[in-house]
């Protein structure tokens, strides 16, 4: 579904991605783990076109999207819940969701709204509340829900567990799993929370300093000694 090959991305002179190859197949949950500053968010954002890949190919459903403007990429059936959530603070929960659906067919709005409210009942209770006054966990739910409202085939999530209580983290992860199983939505998940993420994912990649150093099924990576030493020991 998504094929990334030899992608290099720069911030000025600094090379943040140094030739990334990656594949995400239809219906998979693929997770990317790595230390702070490894370039995970950069890769996720490069898929969306900001920053743009300086070289390499990003092929989504047979179409090279590496040079498309961001807003066109996002209309092809890709949605993201970005780092830092970036919900609209002055708009209500419902308006935020409406914004998520802005490129979708209006006839599905009510139905999709119902769907995300079933996934996140908490948001339904808070439908009229302003986004900026939601708690951190609620904001994260809203960011994911907003991404779902555009009926994407590929969902990109950047650290959905960041700053959340363990119980909410579990809830979010089981939600991701459900969305994937029930609706067959493909998910690309960037995570610090390696243990959870790898258990959930079909396959995973490990990134170090802008390079993919390891890949394999979630189970393989979980039992890999290097991965355990670098990302799992001590924490979980």
């Amino acid at each position: 579904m998504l094929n990334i090959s030899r992608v290099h991305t720069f911030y000025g002179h600094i090379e943040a991605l140094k030739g990334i190859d990656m594949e995400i197949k239809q219906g998979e949950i693929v997770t990317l783990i790595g230390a702070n500053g490894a370039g995970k968010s950069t890769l996720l954002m490069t898929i969306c076109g900001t920053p743009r890949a300086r070289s390499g190919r990003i092929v989504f459903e047979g179409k090279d999207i590496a040079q498309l403007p961001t807003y066109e990429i996002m209309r092809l059936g890709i949605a993201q819940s970005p780092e830092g959530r970036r919900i609209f603070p002055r708009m209500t929960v419902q308006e935020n969701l409406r914004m998520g659906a802005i490129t979708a067919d209006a006839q599905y709005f009510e139905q999709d709204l119902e769907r995300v409210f079933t996934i996140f009942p908490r948001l339904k209770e808070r439908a009229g509340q302003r986004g900026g006054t939601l708690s951190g966990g609620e904001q994260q739910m809203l960011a994911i829900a907003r991404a779902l409202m555009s009926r994407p085939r590929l969902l990109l999530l950047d650290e959905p567990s960041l700053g959340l209580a363990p119980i909410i983290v579990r809830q979010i992860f089981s939600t991701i799993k459900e969305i994937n199983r029930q609706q067959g939505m493909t998910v690309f998940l960037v995570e610090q929370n390696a243990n959870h993420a790898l258990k959930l994912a079909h396959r995973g990649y490990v990134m170090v300093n802008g390079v993919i150093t390891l890949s394999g099924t979630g189970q393989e990576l979980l039992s890999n000694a290097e991965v355990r030493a670098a990302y799992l020991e001590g924490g979980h």
Partner: protein
Amino acid sequence: MTDMTLSAGPKAPSPLVEAAKDAVFAAILVFLLSWLMIGYQTQVLQGQPMSYVTRYSDVLWAVFLIPAGRFLMTLTRFDRTLPAVIGGALGFIYLFIPGVLGVLEVPVYGEFFVTVDPLQPDILPFEQPMVNVIFGIGAFFVLAAGLRARRKKTVGAQTLEVREAAEARQARISKNLSSILGPLLIAVALIIPFTPWGDRKLVDTLILVMTYVMLGWGLNIVVGLAGLLDLGYVAFYAVGAYTYAKLSIDLGLDFWASLPIAGAIAATFGVALGFPVLRLRGDYLAIVTLGFGEIIRIILINWQIFTGGPNGLGNIAKIDFFGIPFERNPKEGELAFHTLFGLDFSPVHRIYFLYYVIIALALVTNFVTIRLRRMPIGRAWEALREDETACRALGINPTNTKLTAFALGAMFAGFAGSFFATRQGFVSPESFTFIESAVILAIVVLGGMGSQVGVALAAILLIGLPEVLRELSLYRMLVFGGVMVLIMLLRPKGLLSFRVPTIQLHGKKALPPTTAGAVK
């Protein structure tokens, strides 16, 4: 032990005593410094020995004002902020505005405030207008210090929830006020020509006010909804006015045929300007639009053959009643307005008609704005103002979205411009200076960005008030400045500032228009 020493120590200083001590000290210092430097001014007159003039009154004023300012500032440190706010505002109004008028030598005001004859007392403390301006700025700082302290006191002490609740309450009040005021204002506006007060002079003033209401609503789309700071809005107003002028003079088109063309051409200008500059953010956009406004004006001045240069274009066709002229003596076999309705001819008919035309145009602007706000494009404008990156990630094309706002705003300015041209019968570059853009922007900001009723109120206040006060000519600008200061003091977010969600829970797709903060 510590408790003992604390309670035995000197009592906490009383704010008044502290501030007074400080002020007395400042007064002595100012006196010592200014006595010789300001009090005596050497003067060398031709063929006479060097002499001096005394300026004791200036010294006394300085010895009073500077410590007074310090006194008020000191009080703010003890949470006594109100004196600083009031004193600062009064000082600012009293010193700054007339001072500026004096510096600019604005004829009437200048002479009034700054008499040339030193024996003639004038109302300003200092002889040199510039000194008054400087002291006025000082007063502004006192005011600002007071306001900042107030904000800190009220906002800093509150939790987020309390602040949210207070804001929500404010918003609710504004909203309710708007839903009452909106229809009321429209009703009053519609019947006023038929009331005993509705004489020609009032209706003339109201036409002017309504023109600015319309311009304010138009600019509100750009600034209030899309959040694009446009300092050159008057350019599109000018384009509309000159388009109608040319169409009328050269092609003989009447107002109604020209209106859509003028709107379209102004919108085209909006797109042409917007396309290259809308990538810029905030301040940069403001500067470029400011420049664009000036460019248009300079072209109007210099393109003699086409625009008539500084003299402008005259003999623009006056408005007609959908093809039927308002004329005393219509051409043979043709109708005129008064013959059609069997009335006696009166020049007032056209004025009244103009009045209703501008009301209709303004209401169309308002209606379109309200509708758009609930459509995807309107939502995109608002979202863009909050977070452009997030919008892009949702599939919104920021450039096109902003361009739409810009073009729409320009189109309404174009309509208003045509109206202006047909009303005046004459256009010249003088009518389209930067100050016009500034006034329109002030209306939007003072009204409460995005609030339709607020904008209307601000236009009435800022345009209507000076017109009504023309008899008090001397104090007119003083009141104008005072009103601006007051609004910013009392309602820093604008007269009626609130935001109503564009959607509510299920079933109701959109709110009924009464609560949409807009004139129905």
